[in-house]
């Protein structure tokens, strides 16, 4: 439910009322806020801090930053607008929300880039002083949108944020620039009051953030408090809103982004395996935060090697895996292209590494900060020769932890590279994460070969077909591995035709056998079948699940199946899908999982595709489902 039209009416009514009387709280079950401003305006920080406040208030939340590819585009321009969206609710939420109920626009450019996404009657909070002639012109407006009635269908609240901020820091000796940079805290304070969020946690966080600049602690806290008090006393807000706590599973929570969860999943896996973690990586958007996070966990121990290029990133991981480390590399699409040959080597010599692809919108450089799911077929087939690799895809930010952990578990158990697919949406999006108990995590067993008697580097475990992990330093196990076709058991160079086929088929059987690890397919909805099943993978989980919930609430026989394991596919997937009259595969690409499903099961599935660097909206998913049902 949206922040209602009453806001404006009551604002008008309250004009006459005494400011001293306590204002009423109005209850809402969920609110979507988008913070937008220049990329230097601190909107990401504001958003994240408001998210923390909301999480502490017990709401279920989902967030998504939307930042430009340019680090600091010229001030006031459309290209420089940075946004952060938060959906907080007293119910379970699956997405950052389709359309904001509240937009904070710090300048005209921020307004212009975001206004089209708003619901009618949405609340727009603007910094009035930022709507000056030059900013208005720079944003491409012919006239001032605050006065030309183009915003009449919205409730516009104009606040002199800049002026009130500089008044709040008066006397602290801050220069204009430093004072201006505190504006975001005024907005945060004001919204904290509007939605009845305590600001204590933000104060603690500001103290940590500016530890080295005490004058900024004081300034930011003053501005934050001034914003909060302004909300309380100003006549512009007739009431505040309350989004009561959600009913979520009990336990200890923290808010987590997909990239942070991925990093933690790898650390957890290495700790459970009792081996050091080694990351070889080259900086690339939107994957770099995994490198940043892991570089702070040295004492576990975690090695991070910022390589000279993407190829060296994966190759160094292969070297570390040869030496017995839990070895990983992280990248995005362009880096996947470059790593392909090395992944083929790891597959052939059978060394365990995990390649994380934080997918972004392609092709080529594409839209680096925007999400897409178009690297699935590349992950499946993007290597020369017969080079199958297991693929795991995370569906929510917190799920990245479990998937990273699982990727390592599979890699070392089957002595194979594993590709972990996440995307820019998951990487930067955040949600509350119920902290796992390390004791309860699935065991990851690493047993290096030690016995020289009858040792053969390519002898295989009868069940998994996995070869021994024999690391340098082990006496009597000296052996050579390499990319050339290798003889069965010894691995010695061999060009025997029959041996080559045997090895290709053996490795393929090993990967196919991983199906034994995959739990039965979960159907959200009607396990026995129905009119339609929406099949998805990756970050489209949220919009699919929420849309399916909505149509099911209206009595439609629609279900949702979401895949974590993309290679191999779950054993029962074909029969599960065949129980439904129609199968729709929803993905942010031109139909990649769709092709696999049709080829694998001869099902006449069809696709719902979006390639805009933006996730599906719940509403568009719901509309599409309804159209399909109508035939």
């Amino acid at each position: 439910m949206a922040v209602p039209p009453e806001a404006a009416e009551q604002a008008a009514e309250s004009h006459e009322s005494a400011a001293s009387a306590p204002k009423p709280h109005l209850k809402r079950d969920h609110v979507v806020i988008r913070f937008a401003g220049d990329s230097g305006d601190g909107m990401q920080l504001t958003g994240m801090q408001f998210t923390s406040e909301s999480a502490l208030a017990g709401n279920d939340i989902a967030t998504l930053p939307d930042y430009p590819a340019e680090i600091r585009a010229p001030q006031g321009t459309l290209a420089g607008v940075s946004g952060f969206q938060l959906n907080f609710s007293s119910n379970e939420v699956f997405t950052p929300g389709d359309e904001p109920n509240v937009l904070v626009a710090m300048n005209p450019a921020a307004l212009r880039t975001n206004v089209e996404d708003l619901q009618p009657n949405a609340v727009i909070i603007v910094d009035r002083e930022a709507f000056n002639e030059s900013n208005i012109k720079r944003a491409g407006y012919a006239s001032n949108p605050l006065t030309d009635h183009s915003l009449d269908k919205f409730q516009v609240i104009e606040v002199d944020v800049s002026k009130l901020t500089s008044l709040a820091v008066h006397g602290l000796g801050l220069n204009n620039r430093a004072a201006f940079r505190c504006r975001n805290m005024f907005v945060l304070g004001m919204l904290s009051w509007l939605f009845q969020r305590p600001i204590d946690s933000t104060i603690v966080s500001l103290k940590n953030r500016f530890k080295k600049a005490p004058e900024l602690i004081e300034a930011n806290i003053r501005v934050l408090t001034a914003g909060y008090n302004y909300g309380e006393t100003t006549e512009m807000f007739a009431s505040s809103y309350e989004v009561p706590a959600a009913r979520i599973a009990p336990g200890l929570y923290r808010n987590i982004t997909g990239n942070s969860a991925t990093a933690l999943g790898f650390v957890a896996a290495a700790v459970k395996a009792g081996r050091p973690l080694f990351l070889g990586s080259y900086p690339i958007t939107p994957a770099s935060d995994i490198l940043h996070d892991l570089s702070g966990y040295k004492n576990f121990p975690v090695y991070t090697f910022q390589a000279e290029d993407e190829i060296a990133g994966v190759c160094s991981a292969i070297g570390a895996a040869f030496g017995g480390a839990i070895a990983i590399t992280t990248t995005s699409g362009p880096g996947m292209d470059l790593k392909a040959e090395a992944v083929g080597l790891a597959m052939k010599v059978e060394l365990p590494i995990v390649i994380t692809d934080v997918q972004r919108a392609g092709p080529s450089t594409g839209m680096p900060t925007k999400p897409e799911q178009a690297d699935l077929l590349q992950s499946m087939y993007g290597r020369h020769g017969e080079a199958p690799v297991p693929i795991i895809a995370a569906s929510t930010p917190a799920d990245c932890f479990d998937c990273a952990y699982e990727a390592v578990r599979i890699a070392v158990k089957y002595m194979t590279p594993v590709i972990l697919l996440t995307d820019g949406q998951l990487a930067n999006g955040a949600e509350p994460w119920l902290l796992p108990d390390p004791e309860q995590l699935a065991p990851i067993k690493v047993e290096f070969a030690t016995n020289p008697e009858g040792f053969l580097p390519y002898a295989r475990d009868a069940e998994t077909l996995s070869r021994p992990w024999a690391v340098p330093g082990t006496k009597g196990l000296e052996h050579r591995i390499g990319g050339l076709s290798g003889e069965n058991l010894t691995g010695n160079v061999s060009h025997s035709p029959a041996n080559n086929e045997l090895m290709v088929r053996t490795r393929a059987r090993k990967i196919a056998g991983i199906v034994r690890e995959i739990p039965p397919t979960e159907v959200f909805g009607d396990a026995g079948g129905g009119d339609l099943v929406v099949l998805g993978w990756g970050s489209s989980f949220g919009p699919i699940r929420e849309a399916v919930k909505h149509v099911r609430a209206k009595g439609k026989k629609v279900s949702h199946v979401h895949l974590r394991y993309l290679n191999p596919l779950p054993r029962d997937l074909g029969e599960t899908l065949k129980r439904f009259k129609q199968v729709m595969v929803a993905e942010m690409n031109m139909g990649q999982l769709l092709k696999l499903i049709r080829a694998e099961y001869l099902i006449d599935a069809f696709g719902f595709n979006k390639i805009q660097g933006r996730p599906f909206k719940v509403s568009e998913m719901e509309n599409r489902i309804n159209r399909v049902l109508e035939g």
Partner: protein
Amino acid sequence: MATVLNRKDFVSDQEVRWCPGCGDYAILAAVQKTMPEFGIAPENTVFISGIGCSSRFPYYMNTYGFHTIHGRAPAIATGLKISRPDLDVWVVTGDGDGLSIGGNHLIHTLRRNVDIKILLFNNRIYGLTKGQYSPTSEVGKITKSTPAGSVDFPFNPITVALGTHGTFVARSIDIEQKHLGEMLKRAHAHRGTSFIEILQNCSIFNEGAFNDVTDKALKADHQLVLEHGKPLIFGKNRDMGIRMNGMRPEAVRLSATVTEKDLVVHDETNLSLAFMLGHFEPPLPTPVGVFYAVSQPTYDGAVNQQLADAKAKQGAGDLKELLSKGDTWTVN
């Protein structure tokens, strides 16, 4: 008491398959003969190679070995050495593998000073792909891919390595077993990236490329053996030397008026001198030996030190504590 190792401890059971007359045989022999002197057990030694004739090398060593992909051996070796500093890690590469497709990894490994030993076999030709010109082939080289003569200027492996400020840069020759053995020992004793360019004869596609420094009749007049602290003297009769003429080196004959005192004295720690010697081309003699050797912290050493420091400061990582870092809240 340490076990005494001998040559056969380092010889694998695989049949060596280079062409008859290939310089690689001599290099393999020198390595297998020298390794026992290091006193490092075969299981603690790893040979990593890329692609090319030289890169078959690990198959013939009874150590741990990894024949990887074209040009990437230094990157794989770096990952191994960082996470397993206890191992003795060697890279075998060639002029195509190391300087063309893998040039990036080579220079970055050298600049970081990762403690690995790189042997670059330079035969100035692509052998495994059957005779195309390489990044060290001379201008005008007629090959299968350059019937009208190559028009690109070659790399000089020594000055490339010096350009990265590599901390150990040397040159030797495949059939000079004694000298090569000495260089291997020096390279092994060095902490940091050791780089040896080994001039290597390709008997099939570039026979005699280094004749002037390998032919018994010619070599004394064309080889300049570098020795730290000694004047630069060469020639059959040890009567030629290198003197500075202003800023330019010149070869001079020793006489009553030109004595050893006039000659340049080699200093392995002088990078400018190393560059100058690295640029020697006929008619100046070809220097062999250690151009440059200085002691600097190794990359893998520094990385492992940071890990040790973090552990000393923060204690061993605690997973439960890590997972619950930051703002947490409890839902009842």
